[in-house]
């Protein structure tokens, strides 16, 4: 049997307490908390994959969260086969340790890729969508070292890395978390936008990127590539 090429996607979500801060209501309509908007990401991805009989086989999805520590919330899986009631919700806790998230990715990715290969798949380079609402609580040299370790050319499974910043996140900082620098980019919310709306926009970008990437795959595993989210709505993102 032909080996099927699969694309592993990771969403890594900041669950620091600031993600629970409710933005002011606009025109009398209560805004979502950023963490609630983040919880909708999985649902949007799952529904998009369910809408096509062709994509479920090609996409694998995992969600990690981080605050002072990091954990696997949804282990690498075919989301179309997971019952919605079984999908855990993100819960806020603690601060914002990029180091915890980056180190967990470095440990987890080889395990997941190894498992997919053991199941008979060819595995595309993973893609990580990294969502944060603020600056790291780690010293600069520590998170930079963790990121360098994750994306070092000696790490065979080093992922494409696309940071999304909302609320207090800074463009100049998140630009340092882009990998590869020449082909990927960061998406940072413009000042004054509602963080929840930006996360909803991120979810749409992420879904578009996953679908386009999966559609690029040939069944014989000879073709297929990660397709970066569209950058045509500059009114939301820097």
């Amino acid at each position, binding site marked *: 049997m032909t080996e099927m090429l699969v694309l592993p996607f990771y969403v890594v979500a900041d669950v620091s307490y600031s993600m629970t801060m409710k933005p002011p209501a606009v025109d009398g309509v209560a805004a979502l908390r950023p963490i609630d908007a983040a919880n909708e990401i999985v649902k949007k991805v799952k*529904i998009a994959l*369910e*809408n096509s*009989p*062709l994509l479920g086989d090609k996409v694998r999805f995992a969600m990690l969260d981080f605050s002072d520590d990091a954990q696997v919330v949804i282990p690498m899986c075919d989301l179309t086969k997971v*019952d919605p009631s079984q999908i855990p919700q993100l819960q806020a806790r603690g601060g914002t340790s990029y180091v915890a998230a980056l180190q967990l990715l470095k440990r987890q990715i080889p395990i997941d890729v190894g498992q997919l290969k053991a199941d008979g798949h060819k595995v595309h380079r993973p893609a990580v969508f990294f969502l944060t609402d603020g600056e790291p609580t780690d010293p600069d040299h520590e998170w930079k070292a963790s990121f360098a370790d994750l994306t070092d050319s000696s790490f065979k499974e080093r992922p494409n890395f696309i940071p999304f910043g909302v609320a207090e996140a800074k463009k100049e900082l998140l630009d340092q978390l882009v990998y590869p620098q020449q082909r990927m980019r960061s998406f940072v919310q413009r000042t004054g936008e509602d963080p929840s709306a930006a996360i909803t926009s991120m979810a749409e970008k992420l879904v578009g990127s996953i679908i386009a990437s999966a*559609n690029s*795959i*040939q069944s014989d595993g000879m073709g*297929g590539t990660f397709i970066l989210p569209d950058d045509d709505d500059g009114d939301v993102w820097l």
Partner: protein
Amino acid sequence: MALIVREADLGPRKELGRGGFAVVSLLSQYQLPELPGRALVYKKYKDKIRPVSVFGLSQLVDLRHGWEPARRQQLDAAFNWPVRVVTDDGPGASGVLLPLLDPSYFVRMTDSYGGVHENPAEGQYLTATRDWCTQRGVPFPTLEQRYALCYSLVRAVGMLHKAEVVYGDLSHKNYLYRLTPKLSVTLVDCDSMRPRGQTSVLGGLQPHTPDWEPPEALAAKRRNDGIGFAAQNYHTDRYKLGLAILRILAMDVPRAAEKRDPDLVRRHLPPHLFRLLQASLTAPPAQRPDARTWFEEMRR
């Protein structure tokens, strides 16, 4: 006759959806004299694919306009053909106007959260298994219905080739189907078609959908021949027509959308049609049966 309109004259519009290359919006007030009462959409190209040739798109639009009404009506039923080229202050064409798709070409689906969606009834759903369809409440067509949909697709490609137009990127995402009120298909994304002898203005964006590449394209790819890979002509249309027929008739075969082996549907086809399918998928390009042959053999 000027079949080019200015974006500024289109009036209010409401976004319906966006894809990789374009944003589609419903025009709430704009009408065309030859299509009274027919709602229109504006497919606006994203900056990343512009400039798009006004001349090239006009060839397609003008071709349709030049047909006698009866023929135009037939083609309009089988194709979501561009009816005007649109320009703005930017370079080249900003997009095209298209008739709004008939609601019968949408399918209602229920997701695992209980949400209900109306999605364009893309041919990909015909390649889904019965279980997949059942889980989402999507009708699973019978073999007879599938046969009728193949007939409609054959007829559409036949009409197109008779009009000397190459479709190009035929795939399960580029045709829609309906089971009522009449079993039929309609082809979409027709702005990337090309009159024979001309270059497609959009065809270079994606010459062949993955898993729909004809053998000669795959061979060109293996020898790093980009131009050979991208070639689209009557022969590649005929190959993809055969592939579509195979995958529509596969019925309840997992991953039917990737299959290329005609034996998969031998039991579903009378011998004369099975031979046509074999020839479509295995004969050298110039010997692939044309749509007219399919049409006549299916009527036997």
